[in-house]
């Protein structure tokens, strides 16, 4: 084939290109030569000024329709830079003397908010309405009152991780603009504010006017009316949320309360916390950003910890299901377990233990034996089936998932073989395994929800949408007999005098649960995961204390939390 046959298309293309460029040249000629003077006049004397009007963001309510976050009106004093360019110093001085502000603050705000010479720049932010009106009266056309919606949180500390906060999109504009944000538009950061931004944000509007060189409005170009965002209702109970935050005292960690059957999160609190209102204001936030304890980290869903003894019920269920264990099978605990030259210890010498005793006593030696009988592959398989290696799918951004090890994983990641010692560690939730508190809670909740892996969630409903979000859950297919055995041992853990969680029995809430003291660098983490009432499961609770010292500290937090709930009467009555 010869190209020459084709080459007349180059001639055609040439003609098309000439025609295209010719058209562009013609239009340019029209704009620049014929109408150039007109456009120059427009550029010189007539300026388009945009007066943005921010959309009111949807409010956030809790499950009892108590308000958690809403937009209040903040009154700002603003100026049009072009209009005051020759009298800025005088104006700022007068303004600051009238209001008793340092002029420096005005300049600082001016420089911070300057976007264009022709759109309003806030120089005094968020003052009360009367003062604003007084200023307007005194300075007349030199200043504007620029009311803007401003987010306010009722529980800025207590709900910070659940709700997140609001900020102008500028900071991440490069990323956000693809999704249709404009730079000054407010966007949700972290928490529900980020996750459901699409519902909440609404749409900003603006009035577009033409002004002359003196700043006088000479023409009205258009108006885009802002659209209010949708209100959303959460599954959170703000009273419980508050109690949760108080129960943690000064300790680091997380506390979560969930409806056992539906997966609705009633409270989720992580400590140290931050203050959402501070982030809205952009004030005093450095101490949060630089704090070594990472207050922005939501420990309930973003941090992973070895789950320690809370893994034992899962291991027991797995061994029962696989036929590697019967409830009556006894192992003798002498207080230690020898493997080669290494010795693995137990808290006490428990003597002969069967499953009914081993879980309430949290006997390590018993579970070493069970782990060895089951083997690491099956352990890994069952841990994964309980959701420990996957995201729970909670409707919060940046959820992390934990890790469930396996011989294959170790070979691939660490390039070494799996040793029997790894199996022993795995059996008591130590070693490589780690999980977020929410994952642990959802896994243990399998025993509370008759064998279902629930999908934890926070959104109950959105304004204007019918019905609440349907609960989705996965049936794990465990035998009822096995489930009942584990459930009973978990109840015994609280009920029996010698059970590790006996402290909670005083509450008379028919609690079942499991404690855990997870060894780590530094002080051990303390765990308590449980559910109640025993017969008619309604609530699942998880307490994690990061470097809390022991499970007993976690139990005490759990006790305080539930006791307070009981006294406040916020528990649902049967």
């Amino acid at each position, binding site marked *: 084939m010869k*190209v020459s046959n084709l*080459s007349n298309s180059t001639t055609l*293309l040439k003609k098309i290109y000439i025609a295209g460029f010719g058209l562009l040249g013609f239009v340019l000629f029209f704009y*620049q*030569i014929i109408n*150039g003077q007109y456009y120059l006049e427009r550029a010189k004397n007539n300026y388009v000024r945009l007066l943005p009007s921010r959309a009111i963001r949807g409010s956030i309510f809790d499950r009892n329709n108590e308000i958690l976050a809403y937009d209040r009106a903040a009154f700002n004093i603003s100026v049009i830079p072009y209009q005051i360019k020759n009298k800025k110093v005088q104006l700022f001085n007068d303004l600051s003397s009238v209001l008793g502000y340092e002029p420096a603050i005005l300049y600082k705000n001016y420089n911070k908010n300057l976007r264009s010479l022709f759109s309003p720049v806030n120089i005094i932010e968020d003052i009360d309405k009367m003062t604003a009106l007084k200023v307007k009266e005194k300075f007349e056309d030199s200043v504007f009152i620029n009311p803007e919606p401003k987010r306010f949180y009722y529980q800025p500390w207590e709900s910070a991780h659940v709700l997140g906060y609001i900020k102008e999109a500028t900071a991440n504009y490069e990323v956000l603009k693809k999704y249709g944000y404009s730079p000054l538009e407010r966007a949700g950061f972290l928490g529900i504010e980020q996750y459901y931004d699409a519902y909440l944000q609404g749409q900003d509007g603006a009035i*577009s006017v033409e002004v002359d060189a003196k700043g006088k409005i000479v023409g009205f170009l*258009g108006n885009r009316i802002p659209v209010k965002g949708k209100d959303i209702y959460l599954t959170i109970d703000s009273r419980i949320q508050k109690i949760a935050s108080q129960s943690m005292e000064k300790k680091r960690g997380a506390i979560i309360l969930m409806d056992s059957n539906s997966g609705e999160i009633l409270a989720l609190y992580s400590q140290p916390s931050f203050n959402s209102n501070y982030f809205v204001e952009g004030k005093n936030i450095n101490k949060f950003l630089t704090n070594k304890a990472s207050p922005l980290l939501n420990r309930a869903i973003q941090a992973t910890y070895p789950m320690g003894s809370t893994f034992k019920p899962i291991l027991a269920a797995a061994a029962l299901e696989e036929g590697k264990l019967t409830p009556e099978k006894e192992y003798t605990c002498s207080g230690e377990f020898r493997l080669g030259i290494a010795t693995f210890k137990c808290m006490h010498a428990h003597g002969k233990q069967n499953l009914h005793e081993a879980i309430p006593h949290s006997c390590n030696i018993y579970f070493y034996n069970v782990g060895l009988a089951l083997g690491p592959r099956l352990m890994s398989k069952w841990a994964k089936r309980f959701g420990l290696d996957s995201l729970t799918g909670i409707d919060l951004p*940046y959820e992390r998932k934990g890790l469930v090890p396996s011989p294959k994983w170790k070979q691939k990641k660490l390039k070494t073989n799996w040793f029997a010692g790894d199996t022993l560690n795995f059996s008591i939730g130590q070693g490589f395994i780690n999980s977020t508190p929410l994952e642990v809670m959802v896994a243990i909740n399998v025993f509370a929800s008759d064998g279902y892996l629930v999908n934890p969630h926070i959104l109950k409903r959105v304004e204007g949408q019918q019905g609440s979000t349907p609960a989705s859950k996965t049936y794990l297919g465990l035998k009822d007999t096995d489930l009942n055995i584990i459930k009973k041992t978990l109840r015994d853990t609280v009920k029996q005098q010698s059970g590790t969680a006996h402290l909670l029995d005083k509450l008379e809430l028919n609690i079942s649960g499991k404690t855990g003291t997870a060894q780590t660098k530094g002080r051990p983490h303390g765990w308590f995961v449980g559910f109640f009432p025993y017969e008619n499961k309604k609530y699942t609770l998880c307490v994690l204390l990061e470097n809390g010292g022991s499970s007993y500290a976690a139990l005490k937090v759990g006790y305080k939390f539930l006791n307070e709930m009981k006294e406040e009467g916020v528990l649902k009555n049967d």
Partner: protein
Amino acid sequence: MTNLRRLKITLTDRKTITACLIILNLLSLAAIYSSLHQAGEFVGAGLLHKQIIWIAISWLFLIIFSFINYRFYFDLSYVIYGVNLFLLIAVSIFGKTIMGAQRWISIFGITFQPSEFSKLAMIVLLARFFSQPQKNDFLKSFLLPLGLVGLNALVIFKQPDLGTALIIFFLFLAMGLASRVNKLYFVGLVALGLIISPFAINSLQDYQKKRLMVFINPNIDPMGSGYTIIQSKIAIGSGKAIGKGFLAGTQNQFNFLPERHTDFIFTVISEEWGFIGSIFLLLIYWLILKKILQKAKNLVDPFAYFLCIGISVLIFLHVFINIGMTLGILPVVGLPLTFLSYGGTSLVINFILIGIFFNICRQK
């Protein structure tokens, strides 16, 4: 003797284009520098430095690619297509979660746009298809390339990047019409496109629909998309015959125009250098396109021929659509102005294409 003469001509081709590119680089830097001013103050040193580095990298790529035998891409065309599709899909899957993560690390390192790479992949793939000898094989020389190109365009459209998706479609059309595949197929395709376009418009993103509406009448949304067009027209028009001079464009300096260092860079040049500058710019582009087409005409290898056609069509489409949208005669679809707009990926890809063209020139 003829060989010698020919060699001399091809060398001149490359020199001419090199000179054009250097002029465009300088114009681009001047315009970006100017656009990064606000009320007389230079505010974007970081972006300017970045672009200088990108220009250096682009030249490096141009030189490297001018030494790689272009026939190589014939064999690799499917692989290139595959990689390109993989990257696109990866972006569409991770895009959302990355959005979250990037909020944290903000703009960290280099951002790469696979949709730019797509343009190169399309040219190579289509050059291979259309340089095959079959003439009227509906399946092999029309439907198969259409399917591959269509899939690619669809993924890009979903990103959503309407501009690039359209470019790819036009590229297919132009290269196909230049080939010996039955023209009726393409005519039929366009007819089909016209019939289903009302439905396609329905499936556009809200903001894309709005852009189309605003294109028809900018005044319905003088605050949003229409604002840009009005301001862009004022900027260009007010440049008059000789322009306001370097750094003196008020529309630009007073921050009237968003995106003015990227998609709307032409308005900066046009306002500051006027009609003369704008026409000069068009002539530079024309010179590059002319050289590429002239070379194509004399080629023996059909694959090289179609590469040249593809490269020239791609450059033309970008220049025409971009300037057309700043002038308000075409909808704002969000396409960079080749060689001029701020941004790394587009620049590198276009320089690679010129590098490939240079290699074609090198071959005897």
